[in-house]
């Protein structure tokens, strides 16, 4: 595969004053960007900074409101993804654009010339995936594949079109460190072939490691262009966030108390064909402890949370004990009455009703556990609006929730602020047990550090906290002990100081060592 290149000084792709308006809101505001041939160019920014909007315009999914795109110095209009592909732009989406009901080969065929037969596509995909070290079975149904494998399909699909520029949108957020390393090798191979890569990420370390240049976005504007290897993570973070991010403080001296959550022999069959079954899970969490559960998305985190929270009670009553009481068959309210609090993963629709006010959302979650405070009139259960409003105010103050108006709809808050409210709603009860799933997923750095600090503080005040997270940085920040979930199996818990990123990666990949870990291994 050879590429015809212009003179080295001509950028492969340039963007001048590119703007995208949604109503009056500018998701991208006068963006300038140059990508040279054969470079790995990072696009850095927090969630909502406009990275995804920008690349959607480059790939023809969205049309710019103003500005110009130049391809090898010639102005182009990219009206559709088909046109982008014809130019030589390939895209690997963050939320996979795969069809679960179709096979790998069928998925790939959809973006290729219809004249090529399925059999040939299968063959080419298999050989290409081998050449780039991305093993794939063309006949498998996507529904049966892991997230890492699904990403490989996207990459192979993009590569089959022989692109000059490959855009990767947050590719490592779903990968284990080892899988990510393999991806980086593939990217270096592409670079060596003279292809350009636009690499979107908010992970500073990996950007510093693999990217030649970086463009930083904040609130839809370019706030910096730099050589990432010359920057420190702190200086990059400042460009991304616009201010220094508060560091999370933790002291490791806290004494552990009694066992608050005890899970033993917990096995749960998969509820749907695409769900993961939990296999023989055991864990103990003591008062004062933060147990962080690491793992790549889709390895049973959601199922484990459902079992722990009682959203789906389990068959064995004895399998889960909260504060010594067997609660396996108890529902979510019964467990809350024992002093437990739960924060599920999905902010919209699961942890909160987007179309209802914050105070209503507060009442929905706590109407049973705080019946006395929020309801009056005995059996009539009349809502005490003054009580829920003042509680809402209290939570918003405690967690620094920024909102418009006194009691706005949950959906009108930004992700970070809504998440702060949802976590604050549970913290307000001073739960003696708290289980949180992905507490800072898609949340800006400021809100994330606030939430993490709150979780640590809760544990320090004598509660048992379980944090299920995909974010390894977060895990090392908050955890006293770390366990890893992989394919529905939970590893034993190791003290955070004894684990390295590499070892967690091995555990994420399902490799469990029976030997004890060497004492010398230290993480952060």
């Amino acid at each position, binding site marked *: 595969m050879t590429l015809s290149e212009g003179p080295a000084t001509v950028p492969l792709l340039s963007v001048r004053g590119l703007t995208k308006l949604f109503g009056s809101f500018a998701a991208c505001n006068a963006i300038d960007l140059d990508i040279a041939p054969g470079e790995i160019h990072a696009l850095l920014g927090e969630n909502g900074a406009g990275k995804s909007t920008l690349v959607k315009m480059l790939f023809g*999914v969205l049309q710019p409101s103003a500005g110009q795109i130049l391809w090898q110095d010639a102005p182009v209009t990219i009206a559709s*993804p088909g046109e982008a592909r014809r130019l030589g732009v390939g895209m690997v989406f963050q939320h996979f654009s795969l069809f679960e*009901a179709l096979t790998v080969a069928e998925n790939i065929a959809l973006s290729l010339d219809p004249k090529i037969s399925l059999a040939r596509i299968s063959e080419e995909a298999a050989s290409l995936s081998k050449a780039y070290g991305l093993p794939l079975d063309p006949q498998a149904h996507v529904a049966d594949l892991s997230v890492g494998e699904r990403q490989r399909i996207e990459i192979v699909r993009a590569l089959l079109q022989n692109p000059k520029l490959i855009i990767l949108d947050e590719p490592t957020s779903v990968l284990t460190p080892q899988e990510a390393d393999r991806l980086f090798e593939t990217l270096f191979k592409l670079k060596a072939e003279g292809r350009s890569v636009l690499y979107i990420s908010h992970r500073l370390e990996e950007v510093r490691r693999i990217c030649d240049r970086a463009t930083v976005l904040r609130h839809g504007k370019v706030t910096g262009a730099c050589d990432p290897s010359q920057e420190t993570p702190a200086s990059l973070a400042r460009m991304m966030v616009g201010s220094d991010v508060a560091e999370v403080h933790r002291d490791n001296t806290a004494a552990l108390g009694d066992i608050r959550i005890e899970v033993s022999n917990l096995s749960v069959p998969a509820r749907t064909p695409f769900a993961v079954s939990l296999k023989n899970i055991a864990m103990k969490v003591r008062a004062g402890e933060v147990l962080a559960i690491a793992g790549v998305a889709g390895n049973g985190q959601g199922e484990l949370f459902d079992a722990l929270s009682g959203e789906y009670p389990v068959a064995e009553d004895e399998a889960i004990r909260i504060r010594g009481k067997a609660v396996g068959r108890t529902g979510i309210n019964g467990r809350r009455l024992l002093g437990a609090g739960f924060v599920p993963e999905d902010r919209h629709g699961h942890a909160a009703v987007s179309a209802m006010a914050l105070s209503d959302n507060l009442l929905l979650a706590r109407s049973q556990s705080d019946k006395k405070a929020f309801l009056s009139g005995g059996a009539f259960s009349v809502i005490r609006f003054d009580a829920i409003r003042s509680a809402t105010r209290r939570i918003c103050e405690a967690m620094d929730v920024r909102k418009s108006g006194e009691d706005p709809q949950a959906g009108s808050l930004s992700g970070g602020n809504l998440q702060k409210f949802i976590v604050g709603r549970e913290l307000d009860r001073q739960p003696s047990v708290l289980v949180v799933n992905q507490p800072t997923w898609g949340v800006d750095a400021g809100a994330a550090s606030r939430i993490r600090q709150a979780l640590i503080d809760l544990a320090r005040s004598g509660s048992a906290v379980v944090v299920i997270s995909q974010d390894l940085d977060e895990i090392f920040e908050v955890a006293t002990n770390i366990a890893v979930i992989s394919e529905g199996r939970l590893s034993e818990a190791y003290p955070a100081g004894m684990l390295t990123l590499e070892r967690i990666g091995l555990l994420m990949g399902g490799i469990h060592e029976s030997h004890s870990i060497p004492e010398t291994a230290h993480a952060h």
Partner: protein
Amino acid sequence: MFEAILLTVITASTPLVLAALGELVTERSGVLNLGVEGMMIMGAACAFVAAQLTGSPYIGILAGILGGGIFSLLFGFLTLTLVANQVATGLALTILGLGLSGQIGEAFVGQPGIKLQPIVFPLLSDIPFFGRVLFRQDLIFYVSIALVVGINWFLFRSRTGLKLRAIGDSHASAHALGINVIRTRYLAVMFGGACAGLAGAQLSLVYTPQWVENMSAGRGWIALALVVFASWRPWRILAGGYLFGAVGIGQLHAQIVAQNLGIVIPSQFLSALPYAATIVVLIIISHNRRTTLINTPASLGKPFVPDR
């Protein structure tokens, strides 16, 4: 006797198979059109009127196809362009179709119709039993069988069919790949309408060659149930359509037999049998949830608005 019953079963089953095949293609593209009954009765009315006016049942067939197809375009415009709720629009389409067809056919009530004559295959039709049953049928029957084969090939062998299934599975992903979701859905909706129209033409030109208001008599609803029953697979539509047709004919005979024996079975109970059968079969096939999920169009009934 058996041969005669079989022939009536075929006549009763063909419109079910046709309408369900059309709806299958529509639903595979992710659109739920509950207006099958309305499109079918429009097809029946247009076909009958055109045949009466021209004297040719073949022009009638064409008019039935066009009637159903154009009527479905109204549904397409409302749900795809104006993004109206598909369930409500489909129900409205049925109500409108029943009323409008009554208006179209009003002047033709009671007129003796023109029956579509069978096409006899020489030699093949001389085969005992099978020949008489299968090769002395009208054009619409042959078309219905050809469509089963054709649609199965189209959906699972052709690239366009793959795109159609992709849209039904995830319209957002399909859009991101550059597939024209709205245009494909328009075509799928119109194909569904044309098939329902052809099914209607079969009713007013073959089954009972005359115009009676509401003559589709709920067959559109059975066709809808049939699509789910067949878990969106063309061959299962054929099997299911004949099963439902046989139950429908069987219940008539059963009633006569029962009456002769002095047993009273409420006719409503027997007419409810196909629906009861659907529920039973649904429970059985939903046991294997993986296959069901892989066949069920995941974006069925969800409106698509490209965000540009």
